[in-house]
Each structure stands twice: as structure tokens, then as C-alpha cells.
């Protein structure tokens, strides 16, 4: 089984070469995206088989001489491989149609398969060199995709920030593995599993892994690159970056913390859970105030990554206290949510891509009324919005409900830090879920409902058949995983067993496919029954309305509030919808200010409303850091223009200082 995956990677690399050669020919798009679709489907199947299958090893004579490349496929990498295959297949299917509109396919086609290859290799790596190489390869190829549309305003800056953060993330992972390797220099993961590091080493390795994987995943406060870079890429790549690459980062975190370290102290769990909760709220608040559709989705990714990290933090907390059942529940919930996020975020990015192509704009203030012109896109995006807002019976609800079930197990934890942090986390998650619903009501309502705000939105057209197929499949999967969460939970059982030593109760045997997190006496959820109830009551209501009301359809002009000229400008806008939330949270957290510039009577210039908003994390951490780097580099720049004598003097001085240090050291 494992040999298939290196084969997939080799095919992807070959597709990258083919993409470079055939980039300008129309057939290139078919070969590359079609090939990636097949490879993604293969990975999906291979991953699904590997979850329940035995752990397999493979050593390839590649990479560092005399060491080779150690690969391993176990249940954890199998799950993420399936997730990657699913996301890749969907994005490739979407891209077959969407890629027709790429302005410069030669900037995308070679890197798209290589990006997938890098992510495959991360999942399979079983030694430090392979892992870090794949990690950096993934970053580099995705950077190339971010910078593909470099002529658009702001993309170059986004790519630069992304590159800096990717290098930072790679460095932190390098240090994490350096701590794990210890003095003996163990480079294979097997050796790291067998080692028994001291408490200090565990703390340092955990901290570096959190920083490295967190900055790749978009964990607050390391998320700043994400809302810049994800929207900058072409839409299928945005879907891959948001839906899949962040999950690969989560895989890295789980691999280090749960597998290689084999558990961390409880304070580490508190940090992860708190950062996750803050990230969920900050991300969704940003999303609620955002008017760029793709950036809104990217901020929502920050939110969902926060939710996943809350789950992971809970699992770590339960594990630190020797409570494997709780750990299994929390870990399963976190991984389930990761899968769900892949599904609905890919779907929503596909929808955003379709809207972007149809109207040429990502600004939701310029959209409106698209439901009439793009019915399939609207319907599938609506399903995605349902799912991401965690409305039952969609999949988002199932996983978030499981995370809340894990939060409710909190009284079993002894430490006061956790006892206090976890309810706060629960409150933050509840707030984030409510705000997410508001955010997506706003996004969907402004973009798809109402009347078109611009001619571009008025002349929008439905997207092509491939894109519609991709969106339809993912919408169906969102519903299916919501109706049958038990199947996913049972699928995840081997992963939970391997990571935490326990699993959730078997779900498939329960009557009516009920989901039971711990025991049926505590709580249970049944998505299928709920769906049937909603469908039945909704259908009944519709039938009654049909029967009672008149069947004649009457079209009248909407009420114009007394204005004789019903311009689309008089509609409710995204800004007006986000304003209450901005008033409540924005003033304190984002320092949102709006100033009205009212001209004096008789002055002919228009009145202006200026709104400013700033990211607290950027202001508190990144801006001072950037100023510090600029200060140091501008002062070190003087060193480039010294005289020969001064350079000699520096060399001489350095030599003397080192020798003096040597003399004093002895």
C-alpha cells in the first residue's frame, strides 16, 4: 500500500514538468489538472485503506547519502492522506474548468502538482530530513502559486509576508526536531519515539512545534500572512491552501506532540486551548468586518483552525491527566472538524472563484442578486454557509458539537488552570460559532440575494460544468458527513487509538445512527433524525402553504421605502450589516474608528465617511518587530561602505576578541 504514495509523488513531479512544458497549450491544463484529479482520488483511496490498515515502512535510497529517505504510512498519515486526496481531487476537478480563465497558466501549471507532491511527502516522512525538506518544498511551491498573479495590487506584499512567515515556520520546525533529536542526533522518527526526553526538552520541542506548525496553520498570533496569501492565489489554490495545507500543518503538530513527544504537560495544553479560542473569535470578527469575499473566507480559516486547536488542546489536557477516553473524544472531534473544514472551505473557495470569474470582483459590496444568475453556485455556497455556520444537520455542527462535548468533560480535570481556561474556551467557541453564522448570513445575503449593485453583478453568468460538479460533490459530502458523523468517528477510531490509547464508542451499531460521544446516558446527537424532521416539517409547511395560499405567482416591484427611484444603492450593504458587530467589538479590539467629514453649508464637495480598522496582533507584535529589523538593517548597512583599513580593522578586532575569549575561557 505504501508504495503507491511515492508513486503518486513521482507522477505529480512528472506532471509538474509536463506543466512547465505544456503550459501554454490548452492540453496542458487537461493533462495537469486531470492527472492531479486521478492522483488525488488514488491518495484518497490509499489513505482510507491505510487508516485501518497496518503501519507500513519504506526506505528509499534518495535524499541524504547513507541515510536514505524513511517513509511511513500509519493511521494518522492515512487520515490526512485521505483528506489531502479529497481536497486535491476536488480542487483539480474545479480547476479543469476554472483554469481556462488563467491569464498566465505557465505560472500555475508547473507548481500546482509540485505543491501537491510536497504535501504528500510531508505526510509520509518518517525522518527529520525528509520532513523538513517536504515542509519547505510545500512552502516554496505554494509561495510560487501565491505570487502567480503578481501584477495584482498587494499580491507581491502578500507573497513577501508569506515567505517570511514560511521561513520562520521552517526554522521553528527545524529547532523542534533539533530538540527531539537530542545529543545523540537521532534523525528518524522511530528513534525519537523511543527516546525519553527530559521535561525541559519536551517543553522546548513543544514550543517550537507550536510556533512552527501554528504559523503554517494560521494560529493566532501567527496568522497574519494567511488572510494576505490565501486570497492572492488563484481560487483552486486558495481552496488547497486554506482547506488542505493548514491541515498538513495540523498534522505536523499532532505528529510531534502526540506521537513523537508522546504527551506534554498540562500547561502546554492550556496554552494551545487558549490560543485556539482567541484565534477562533479574532478570526471570525475579522471575517465579519471584511468585504473582500476571499479574504473573508481566509479569516474564517483562522477561526476554524482556532477551533481545531481548541480540540487538540483539550486532547492534550486529557492525555496529560491520564484520561484517554476524553483525549480520544477531543482528538477525534478536532480531526473531524479539520476534515469538515476541508470540505466546506474548499466548497466556499470554489464558489468565491466562480463569483470572481463571473463578475470580476471579490468585493461583496459590488455583488448582489447572484442567486438568479448563478443558481447552482448559489445553492452549493448556501450549503457551505450552512455547514461553516455549524447549523444542524450539516457536518460543521457535528464536529463542533463533539468539541463542546469534550469541553463538558472538564470537571474530570484536576488542575485549576485548566478548570478555568476550558469554560472560557467554551464561551469563546460559542461566541465564534454565533459570529460565524452572522458572518456567513452577511456574506451570502449581500452577494447572492437582493438586487445587483453593479453592472458586473447584473451580467454574471453561471460557471462551467466542471466547477459546478466540484461544488456539487463537496456540498453533497458536507451533508453526508453531517448526516452520518458516526461513520467518520468510527473511521477515526484507529487514529485516536494510536495517538491517545483509547477510542470513542463504536457508533455504527447504535439505532438510528445516533452519535454517542461518551455514553448514551450523558448525551447523544442524531443528525439523520434531525434532518428527516426538518425535511418533513419543512415539506409539510410548504404543502400547507401551497394548499391554503394561492398558487398564482405575482411579481410586483419591491417596496421602495418611499423613494421614487429604487436604486440598488439603497439596499442594505455588507458594511451596514457588519456595523453593529464592528461597534460592539471593533472599537475595543480593532480600534475601529469612523469619522464623518461634513462640508460646511454652501461647500460643494461631498461629505465623506472614513473608517479605519487595525489588527491588534499586527500592531502589537509584527509592526514593532518590523521596525526593529528595519532599524538594525539600516544601521548595519553602513558596514557596506567602509574603507579597506576599517574592514581589516574589523577582521583584526574580531580575531583579537575571539582569541581573548579563548584565553579567558580556559
Amino acid at each position, binding site marked *: 500500500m505504501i508504495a503507491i504514495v511515492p508513486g503518486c509523488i513521482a507522477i505529480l513531479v512528472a506532471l509538474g514538468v509536463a506543466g512547465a512544458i505544456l503550459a501554454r497549450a490548452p492540453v496542458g491544463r487537461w493533462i495537469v489538472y486531470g492527472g492531479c484529479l486521478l492522483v488525488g482520488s488514488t491518495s484518497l483511496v490509499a489513505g482510507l485503506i491505510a487508516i485501518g490498515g497496518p503501519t507500513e515502512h519504506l526506505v528509499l535510497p534518495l535524499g541524504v547519502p547513507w541515510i536514505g529517505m524513511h517513509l511511513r504510512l500509519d493511521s494518522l498519515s492515512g487520515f490526512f492522506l485521505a483528506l489531502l486526496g479529497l481536497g486535491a481531487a476536488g480542487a483539480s476537478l474545479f480547476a479543469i474548468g476554472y483554469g481556462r480563465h488563467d491569464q498566465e497558466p505557465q505560472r500555475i501549471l508547473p507548481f500546482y502538482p509540485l505543491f501537491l507532491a510536497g504535501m504528500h511527502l510531508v505526510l509520509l516522512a518518517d525522518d527529520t530530513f525528509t520532513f523538513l525538506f517536504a515542509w519547505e518544498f510545500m512552502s516554496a511551491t505554494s509561495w510560487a502559486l501565491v505570487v502567480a498573479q503578481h501584477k495584482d495590487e498587494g499580491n507581491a506584499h502578500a507573497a513577501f509576508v508569506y515567505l517570511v512567515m514560511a521561513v520562520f515556520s521552517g526554522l521553528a520546525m527545524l529547532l523542534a526536531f533539533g530538540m527531539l533529536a537530542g545529543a545523540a542526533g537521532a534523525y528518524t522518527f522511530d528513534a525519537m519515539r523511543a527516546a525519553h526526553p527530559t521535561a525541559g526538552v519536551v517543553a522546548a520541542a513543544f514550543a517550537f512545534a507550536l510556533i512552527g506548525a501554528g504559523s503554517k496553520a494560521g494560529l493566532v498570533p501567527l496568522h497574519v500572512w494567511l488572510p494576505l496569501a490565501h486570497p492572492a492565489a488563484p481560487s483552486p489554490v486558495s481552496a488547497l491552501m486554506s482547506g488542505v495545507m493548514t491541515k498538513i500543518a495540523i498534522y505536523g503538530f499532532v505528529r510531534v506532540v502526540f506521537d513523537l513527544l508522546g504527551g506534554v504537560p498540562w500547561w502546554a495544553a492550556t496554552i494551545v486551548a487558549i490560543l485556539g479560542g482567541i484565534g477562533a473569535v479574532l478570526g471570525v470578527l475579522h471575517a465579519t468586518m471584511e468585504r473582500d469575499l476571499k479574504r473573508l473566507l481566509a479569516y474564517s480559516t483562522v477561526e476554524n483552525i482556532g477551533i481545531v486547536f481548541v480540540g487538540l488542546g483539550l486532547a492534550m489536557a486529557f492525555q496529560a491527566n491520564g484520561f484517554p477516553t476524553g483525549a480520544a473524544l477531543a482528538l477525534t472531534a478536532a480531526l473531524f472538524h479539520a476534515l469538515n473544514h476541508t470540505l466546506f472551505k474548499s466548497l466556499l473557495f470554489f464558489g468565491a472563484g466562480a463569483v470572481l470569474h463571473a463578475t470580476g470582483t471579490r468585493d461583496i459590496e459590488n455583488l448582489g442578486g447572484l442567486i438568479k444568475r448563478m443558481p447552482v453556485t448559489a445553492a452549493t455556497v448556501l450549503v457551505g454557509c450552512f455547514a461553516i455556520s455549524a447549523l444542524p444537520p450539516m457536518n460543521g455542527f457535528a464536529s463542533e458539537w463533539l468539541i463542546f462535548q469534550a469541553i463538558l468533560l472538564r470537571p474530570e480535570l484536576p488542575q485549576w488552570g485548566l478548570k478555568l481556561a476550558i469554560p472560557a474556551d467554551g464561551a469563546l467557541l460559542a461566541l465564534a460559532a454565533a459570529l460565524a453564522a452572522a458572518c456567513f448570513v452577511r456574506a451570502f445575503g449581500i452577494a447572492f440575494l437582493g438586487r445587483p449593485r453593479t453592472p458586473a453583478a447584473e451580467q454574471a453568468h453561471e460557471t462551467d460544468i466542471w466547477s459546478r460538479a466540484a461544488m456539487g460533490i463537496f456540498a453533497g459530502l458536507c451533508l453526508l458527513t453531517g448526516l452520518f458523523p458516526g461513520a467518520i468517528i468510527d473511521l477515526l477510531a484507529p487514529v485516536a487509538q494510536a495517538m491517545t490509547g483509547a477510542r470513542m464508542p463504536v457508533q455504527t451499531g447504535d439505532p438510528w445512527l445516533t452519535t454517542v460521544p461518551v455514553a448514551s446516558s450523558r448525551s447523544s446527537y442524531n443528525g439523520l433524525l434531525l434532518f428527516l424532521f426538518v425535511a418533513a416539517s419543512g415539506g409539510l409547511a410548504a404543502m400547507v402553504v401551497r394548499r391554503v395560499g394561492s398558487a398564482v405567482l405575482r411579481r410586483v416591484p419591491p417596496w421602495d421605502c418611499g423613494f421614487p427611484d429604487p436604486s440598488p444603492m439603497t439596499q442594505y450593504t455588507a458594511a451596514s450589516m457588519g456595523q453593529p458587530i464592528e461597534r460592539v467589538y471593533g472599537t475595543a479590539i480593532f480600534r475601529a474608528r469612523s469619522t464623518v467629514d461634513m462640508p460646511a453649508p454652501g461647500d460643494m464637495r461631498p461629505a465623506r465617511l472614513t473608517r479605519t480598522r487595525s489588527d491588534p496582533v499586527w500592531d502589537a507584535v509584527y509592526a514593532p518587530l518590523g521596525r526593529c529589523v528595519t532599524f538594525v538593517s539600516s544601521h548595519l548597512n553602513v558596514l557596506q561602505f*567602509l574603507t*579597506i*583599513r576599517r574592514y*581589516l580593522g574589523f*577582521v*583584526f578586532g574580531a580575531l583579537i576578541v575571539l*582569541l581573548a575569549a579563548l*584565553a579567558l575561557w580556559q
Partner: protein
Amino acid sequence: MHGISFDIAHMLAGFLVLASFSMLYQVRLYALLNVLALHAFVLALSVAWQAHIQDAPHLYITALIALGFKAILIPWALRKIVFRLGIHREIEAVGGIGPTMLAGMALVALSLEVMLPVTALADPVAREDIALALSVVLIGLLTMVTRRNAVSQVVGFLSLENGIILAAAGARGMPLVVEISVAFSVLVACIVVGIFLFRIRERFDSVDVGVMDTFRGGQG
């Protein structure tokens, strides 16, 4: 082996350090070149003595190279260059002689302080030779730093190389290849520097590196 041969090796190495010191305060270029010749001559003697006490005939070749190239050929070539550049009458400002000498002494003390504990287990001849060789290297660097004239910087560089050769000769069993390559590298460097000096002179009418700095907008 001990006794007189030991003392002579140290005497010659010490003499080399002394020559380095006298290089520090030579303000006239011809005098500086004379000291360079003396420096290389002492090096040749020292290496020859090492060859004798180590029974290493290949070191005689090194000594001959040092004598031929460094004591005779290179000073002669530099003398020609100085004459053709017409700077043989110039007096170079070397900064305060007193502080420079004190700095040189401090460097010798530092190198002894560093080297003697490190090489505690080594052969005693090689041990002190290496300490003295390091002081020659450091004083050569100090000469380069304190000088403004390109020719004197070349001289400082050459004396630095002499220190390296001294260290290499003192270590038993150092293959000849290394010394020949070092000697050749010095020769090549010298040729390159000679050509450069003329190019610089053509371009800027001076071999004072301070003058060059004004051309590139530095501050002296």
C-alpha cells in the same frame, strides 16, 4: 635534541617577532622593505634550523624558497615598484609609535596566553614556536591595519604569511606541499598586488588607500 638546539629554535623565532616589531615603526618604505627582507631571512634560518633538528630535508627546500623568494625576489620587486611609483621618498604617518608598540606587546602576550595552555601536550619546540608564530601573524595584521599605504599593507601581509610558514615548519610532519602552495600563493598575491598598484596609480595618481576612499564616497 634539547639544550642548545631548543634554545636556538626559540632564539630564531623570537628574532622573527623582533623583526615584526621593528616593522611596526618603519616610516620609510625602503627601510620597511629592508626589514621585510630581514624578516624573511630570519624565517629562512629558522626553517633551516627546524629542518636540521627534525631531520626533515624537505624543510630545507622551504627555507630556500623563503630565502629566494621572500628575502630577495619580493623585496627587490617591491623596491622596483616603489621606485617606479616615485614614492620612495615619502614618509608615512604611522600613528603613535608608542601605542603601536604597546599594542604589539599585548598581542604577543595574548598569543602566548592562548597558545601555551592549548598546546600543553604538544612537542615543546613546536609549542613555543606556534605561540611565537601566532604573535608574528597578529603583528602582521596590526601592521596592515595601522598603515595607509598599499605597499606597506602588502608588506604587512607578507610578514603575516611568514608567521604562518613558521608555524607550519615548527609542526612535525607537515607535508611539503602545504609550504610550497603557501609560497606560491604569496608570490601570486604579490604579482596581483603589484599589477593592482599600477592600475590604482594610473587611475588615482596615488597608492594611498585613503585617497581611494574619497573616490567612492567613504569618509577617509
